[in-house]
C-alpha cells in the first residue's frame, strides 16, 4: 500500500518501471483520442502554446496542428515513441512534480490519465499545482483521471469500493529464442510460442467531486467539469 515514507520509490516500482516495460505494447493499444481532450485542444486559437504532461505515446499531439505543445512523459520509452510519431511538437522526459517549464507563460495544459498514478493525496495535489503554475493568467488546464464510479465497465468498480488499486496489464509476446539463449529465464513456459507477463500498475480511483477538491487545494479555480466514459475531468485556471 502507498502512503509510506517512500512514495516516490513506490511509484517508481508500481508505475514508472511498468510503463517503461510495457511502453510499446501500451502504445499500440492507445491510438484513439478521447473526445474531451480532443475537443478541448480544438477549441484553442492557432499559435497557442501549451503542455501535455504525461503524454504517453502522444496521441493528443496531432489533435490540433496549429498549436505548439511541449509534451513530456516520465517514461523515456514512451517519450521516444511520441517524439517519433509527432515531430511537429516537442517531447521531453520529465517528472510531473518537477516540470522544467517557465512559470506562468502557457496558454493551456492537458494531463490525461496521469494524476491518478500518484500514490498520496499530497502528491496528487502537488501534481495539479505544478501544472497550474505553468499556466498564464487566463490559461486553462484540463485534467482527466480514472473514476471510481464505473459500474458499466467490465471492472465494475463503484461507490464505496477501495480507491487505491492495482490494475494488471498483460503482455503477450513471441519468444525470441536467440535472445533467450544462455539466460536463466524464470518464466514457466519456456519453449511455448508465446509468453505472458502481467504487470501491475497502481491507480487512485477518483470518487465524484474529489478531483475538483484537489484542484482547489492546489490553488486552482474550477471552470468546468464532468464525467466521460469511466473518467472524471475538470478544466481549471490559476
Amino acid at each position, binding site marked *: 500500500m502507498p502512503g509510506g515514507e517512500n512514495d*516516490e520509490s513506490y511509484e517508481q516500482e508500481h508505475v514508472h518501471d511498468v510503463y517503461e516495460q510495457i511502453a510499446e505494447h501500451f502504445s499500440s493499444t492507445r491510438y484513439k483520442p478521447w473526445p474531451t481532450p480532443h475537443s478541448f485542444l480544438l477549441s484553442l*486559437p*492557432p*499559435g*497557442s*502554446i501549451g503542455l501535455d504532461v504525461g503524454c504517453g505515446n502522444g496521441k493528443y499531439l496531432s489533435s490540433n*496542428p*496549429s498549436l*505548439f505543445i*511541449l509534451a*513530456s512523459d*516520465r517514461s*523515456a520509452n514512451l*517519450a*521516444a515513441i511520441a*517524439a517519433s510519431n509527432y*515531430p*511537429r511538437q*516537442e*517531447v*521531453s*522526459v*520529465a*517528472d510531473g512534480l*518537477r*516540470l*522544467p*517549464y*517557465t*512559470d506562468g*507563460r*502557457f*496558454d493551456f495544459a492537458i494531463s490525461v490519465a496521469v494524476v491518478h498514478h500518484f500514490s498520496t493525496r499530497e502528491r496528487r495535489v502537488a501534481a495539479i499545482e505544478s501544472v497550474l503554475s505553468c499556466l498564464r493568467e487566463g490559461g486553462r488546464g484540463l485534467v482527466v483521471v480514472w473514476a471510481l464510479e464505473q459500474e458499466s465497465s467490465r471492472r465494475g468498480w463503484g461507490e464505496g469500493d477501495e480507491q487505491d488499486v492495482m490494475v494488471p496489464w498483460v503482455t503477450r509476446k513471441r519468444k525470441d529464442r536467440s535472445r533467450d539463449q544462455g539466460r536463466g529465464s524464470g518464466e514457466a513456459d519456456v519453449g511455448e510460442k508465446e509468453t505472458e507477463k502481467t504487470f501491475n500498475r497502481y491507480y487512485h480511483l477518483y470518487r465524484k467531486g474529489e478531483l475538483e477538491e484537489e484542484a482547489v487545494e492546489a490553488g486552482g479555480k474550477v471552470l468546468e467539469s464532468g464525467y466521460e466514459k469511466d473518467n472524471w475531468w475538470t478544466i481549471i485556471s490559476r
Partner: protein
Amino acid sequence: MKLLTLNFVSCARKACKSSTSSFPLHPRDAELELVEMEFNPQFLQNMLPKLEWEALQIICNELALPTLPSSTPAASDLFESGGEGSSPAQPTQVARDLHKLLLETTIREGLLVCSNCGHEYAIKEGIANFLLPPHLV
C-alpha cells in the same frame, strides 16, 4: 529540441525556479540539425508576443547563429505590405527566417546547462531528459 522550446524551459529544480538565472538554459556541445516543418505564418504571428526575445538572442549568440533584430519583430514585419490586391498578404523573409530558427533548428545532441545550479540536462536523439538525480530533487 526545437529552439522555440528552449524559450519556454528552465531548470527543473524547485530551488532554481525562483532564480532568474535558471532561464534560459544554456546549450553546450550542441549538435544542431535542420528539420523541415510546415510553414505557418499565422502561427508565428500569434507566437511572437509570447516569446522572451532577450533569451532567444542569448541562445542564438551562444550557438553562433545569425544575430537577431534587437527587439521582437512586429506582426507587420511578417507580411509584405501588398497593394490593393485581393490576394492574401505574402510572408516576408523575416517570417521565413524566424520559422527556420524557431521550428526547424533543433538540438539533436548536447547538454542544457542551468547557470544557477550548474546542472546539465542531456539531449539525445533530439529528446531532452529533465529527470533529476535523487540528491537534486
